[in-house]
């Protein structure tokens, strides 16, 4: 295990931690346009996940030739 693997591992695990912590987001307020926190928070995490995974992919492939 080198530093690169550890960083990639952490990036991939973050969304698991976020989504498994159900009591932290199982709330109605603050709502956006009447939509509960429960729904928009989890949707927001899709965008965050794509960002984290994108960074992970970049780190893995940096310097690797196809």
């Amino acid at each position, binding site marked *: 295990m080198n530093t690169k693997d550890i960083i990639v591992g952490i990036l991939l695990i973050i*969304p*698991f931690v976020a989504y498994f912590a159900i009591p932290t987001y199982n709330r109605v307020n603050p709502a956006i346009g009447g939509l*509960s926190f429960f729904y928009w928070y989890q949707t927001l995490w899709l965008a965050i996940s794509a960002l984290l*995974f994108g960074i*992970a*992919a970049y780190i893995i492939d940096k310097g690797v030739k*196809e």
Partner: protein
Amino acid sequence: MIDTVEISVFLVFFIVFIAIGFLAKNFRKGNLNQLPEWALGGRRLGTFLVWFLVGADLYTAYTFIAVPSSMYSVGSVYFFAVPYVSLAFAIAMLTMPKLWAIAKEKGYVTAGDFVKDRFNSESLAIVIALTGIVAELPYIALQIVGMRAILTALLHPVGGNVTLISNIALVLAFLALIAFTYTSGLRGASLTAVMKDIIIFTTVIVVIVVALVAYHSAFTTAFTVKPVYADLPPKLYNAYWSLFLMSAAALYLYPHAINGSLSSMSAKKLRLSTALLPIYGIGLAFLALFGVIVYGIPAAESALKIYPSSIQGALVVPTIIASVTPQWFTGFAFLGIFIGGLVPAAIMSMSQATLLTRNVIRYVNRNLEEKRETFIAKLSMVFFQLLALGFVFIVPETYAISLQLIGGIIILQTLPAVFLGMYVKHLEKYAIAAGWLAGIASGVYFEIYSNFVYLHYSIIKTTLMPSAFGLIFVGLTALVINLVVVVIGTAIVYAMHKQPNISKEKA
């Protein structure tokens, strides 16, 4: 009133769709008599096309019909589809580029090919291949439920024998599908996937904007009508995480997802497109919310009431689209959802056919020529598409999500062989086979127990089972049992031999 505009727009775009499907055979030309060319597009798809192709497996009738339907009829627990999408791609990032590299080096086309070499067992490969084929069937059936829902919404205002006309239209659509997947293979599926997703993205954005402009307090109204939908009842926490974790683990075990990944040009391109796939899920989240917002749009809610309650759930998304957009747009959007079932059905049946020829028929007939192998693959694909069509008559529409989850319970039992097989060195094939058997048997048992014994249903409505921890997904229990057997089995083999993998199968 007959919606001529709606139906005409639908038909015109359907013709365009079929034309793209046929013309795709000239895309990145290859010899379509070779299986990797036909089934994997010659492993020449870039980041963009793999993103659409794998995304196409995600944006299916599951997304448009099954998830909104469950949200509408059961509530917030079915929002599990959102975390599922994010976590599935984290798992894919770890497993698929590695499988791609192994497959490229050794010329594998399926997960069965990998299992055969890894465990030195053709029998285990056949078991894995057949599990994949069976797991796809309910998933394809779900696509057909979605397509039928669209036809019902499209034709209901016309009147007459809607069921009969829908079934005829469905058969015709399937014949068109069979014709172009037969000629163009995965190239046809990936190019039509791009068309389908452009229509879907447009639809989701337009409908959400239009609905919220016209009914700006729709969510507030909906949560007033259904307060329990506003968040997740704490007694369903274990149901929620077991559903999203197991669905995520299952997605990339499905043969169609593996096919899609292996069609990538390089491991690097595959990794990037996989990383960006959660973005696809944002549309899924909005569509899931259609199942809630419908309670806040009186026009849609009353339009839904004209249908029998058994199919209302499946018609949530079509009804909202029809109530908030003009006829021409409704026709366009309906076509998007219709081919949103058709394209994944094509990809899924193609992956079943590939498994059957590579890992089952080849075992029976070892001297199979390449051209003949591909021909058998094409023929069996037609067979699977027709077999799945048969599900049309036995599926309860509103609980269609159970179809995908049943597929999940089945395919999860291949996890030890495929995912652990890639990363854990000391696994023994007999232990893997015993684990598979224990997983499948317990999964089937708990599924039957929950629906028919515990809840006294006469059809399958749920994949959650009662337990000491409240309701949990059957797939989790079955996989845990499977893994326990694999670990104990491997330990026993170790105790008996010093080098477990030395015992080669006498095949």
